[in-house]
């Protein structure tokens, strides 16, 4: 392996406040209170404010447009029914994300994808696992990775790796929270995240081999 890393300078950080802490959105608090009282316009405003984030989260976790749309629908139906239990103890978007993640996980369990309870099921097959090849790195690893390429690489991860990577590195959940959601140990969450990053490193070394995300509009920013 050469000394030059795969990725050069990281992109400009998003507003730091958007990561892990979700700032209040103008008009959101009022819309929540009105929607709790059954105001349909207020609920449609909440949908408009959060549909892209919820849908993107579903798409990343599921890797399938049709299922992501179904789960987005389910998430907002669930939101409508459960909105009365939102007490404002966390940011609304954090609460909505957690609700969405739990619904997606429930959906995956119903489908029979046991990605959470057993070590061997959360772990992908040996073919999918990242290779442990210290000392035999390709010397030509220069170049930055754009957002679309990273999205494609994330979509190519085995489901167990992808889930932990999205929850931790993208959504900002802590390992203990992920362990609770996935019904695994904190150590398992850390280990899966590390393997996911190693696998991403492998995938990003050959970006031309990454397939486009099926049905996705892939908006480059």
């Amino acid at each position, binding site marked *: 392996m050469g000394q030059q890393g795969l990725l*050069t300078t990281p992109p400009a950080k*998003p507003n730091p406040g958007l*990561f892990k802490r979700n700032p209040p959105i103008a008009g959101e608090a009022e819309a929540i209170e009105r929607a709790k009282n059954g105001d*349909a316009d207020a609920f449609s405003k909440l949908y408009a404010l959060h549909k892209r984030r919820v849908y993107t989260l579903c798409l990343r976790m599921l890797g399938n447009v049709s299922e992501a749309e179904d789960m987005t629908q389910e998430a907002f139906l669930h939101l409508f029914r459960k909105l009365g239990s939102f007490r404002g103890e966390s940011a609304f978007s954090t609460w909505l994300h957690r609700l969405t993640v739990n619904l997606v996980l429930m959906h995956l369990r119903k489908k029979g994808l046991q990605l959470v309870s057993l070590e061997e099921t959360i772990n992908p097959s040996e073919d999918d696992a990242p290779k442990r090849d*210290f*000392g035999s790195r390709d010397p030509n690893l220069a170049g930055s990775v754009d957002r679309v390429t990273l999205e494609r690489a994330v979509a190519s991860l085995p489901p167990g790796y992808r889930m932990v990577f999205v929850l931790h590195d993208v959504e900002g959940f802590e390992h203990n929270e992920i362990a609770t959601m996935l019904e695994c140990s904190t150590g398992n969450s850390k280990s899966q995240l590390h393997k996911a990053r190693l696998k991403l490193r492998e995938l990003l070394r050959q970006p031309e081999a990454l397939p486009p995300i099926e049905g996705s*509009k892939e908006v480059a920013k």
Partner: protein
Amino acid sequence: MSDLTNVNFDNMTAAQFEDYLPDLFASGDGKVSHDPRFAVFLEKNPDCAALVHDLEAIAEHAKSLFEPTEEPADSVWSNIASKLKGETQDLDEPSGLIEPAAE
């Protein structure tokens, strides 16, 4: 997980370092490259330094994915609104489906 209390970080092997990495990344601010305990080791092991650099960069790039890029089809809202029609009086308007509000 790894017990790092008695580890001599200057003399560990690359394989040992990789075994410790999941815990090292999960502790502190996750910036192994900034941790003075590994300065000597990483200086002596450029492959490991490149690995750490790449993994930190991947984690940093991942934050940029937090902002959504994808938009659900209009039919998603139509389906939600029509299902809610049956659940609430408010949504049961003569015009049928309500329009989603502008952001």
